[in-house]
């Protein structure tokens, strides 16, 4: 039974995501289109599974929701801060720097989400990983305290992601 389920749904989360996205793409919700979405959600992961190394292990979805809300709030604040810097700060007063963040996260999905979060929030862009994946290179728009930025990212985002992706 377990084997058959695994054969039919190699990536359960991807199946759900594809069905939901397909239903949202329709202009009106109909049961027929939802069923077609579920069929797509079964067929697409099945066809593409040779290119997936292995199914990502699960994460705690209940802890994901407060994290998403926190990031959305930070994006709004970040937008206002960056807009203020763009409009008022002259070019020679900017202090852009590289910040290196030592990573405690080891799972690729967690590192991807951390990098995406960093790019979307206050004046920081994640630029590169080190070749063995132990540190993340981040470019900051304007700071006089690179250590502070590093500690803020580790405390605010990485600590929460560690609890989501065990």
């Amino acid at each position, binding site marked *: 039974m377990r084997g058959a389920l695994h054969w039919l749904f190699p990536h359960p989360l991807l199946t759900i995501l594809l069905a939901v996205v397909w239903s949202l793409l329709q202009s009106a919700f109909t049961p027929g289109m939802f069923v077609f979405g579920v069929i797509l959600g079964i067929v697409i992961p099945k066809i593409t599974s040779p290119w997936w190394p292995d199914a990502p292990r699960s994460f705690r979805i209940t802890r994901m929701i407060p994290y998403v809300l926190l990031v959305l709030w930070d*994006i709004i604040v970040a937008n206002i801060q960056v807009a203020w810097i763009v409009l008022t700060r002259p070019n020679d007063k900017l202090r852009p720097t590289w910040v290196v963040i030592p990573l405690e996260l080891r799972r690729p999905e967690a590192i991807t989400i951390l990098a*995406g979060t960093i790019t979307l929030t206050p004046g920081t862009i994640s630029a590169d990983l080190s070749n063995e994946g132990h540190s993340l290179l981040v470019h900051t728009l304007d700071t006089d305290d690179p250590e502070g930025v590093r500690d803020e990212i580790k405390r605010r985002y990485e600590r929460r992601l560690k609890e989501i992706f065990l």
Partner: protein
Amino acid sequence: MTAGIIATWAIAISLLIGSFFCLVGAIGLLRFRDSMVRLHAPTKVGTMGVGGLLLAAMIHSYTFEQGSLHELLIMGFLFVTAPISANFIAKVHLHHRTCKMPDPPPHDETWATLDVPEADLEIEAQSDA
């Protein structure tokens, strides 16, 4: 004050907020000098700019027409793809060495973009020259 009037005001305000942030993104792209700094303005301000416009579209469709949730999908796709394109542009700058180069990482040998396999060292030397 009917629901229609409140909705019209909400639409107007979201449109103004959205277009203001789009404008700021464009100004930032034009006026900064350093290539890495210029990357900051459009990637961040763009999300909020497009977000404001999409919010206006959603309020409009729910008050005056059939509701639609397509805007949420656009927002989702934008949030997933914006960091990836920013990451790619940053990697190109690192690769061409057109920005101030970072120090090597503390734990590993080098940054992934600068890590050239031995077989490609000759090609890399030619492209630098």
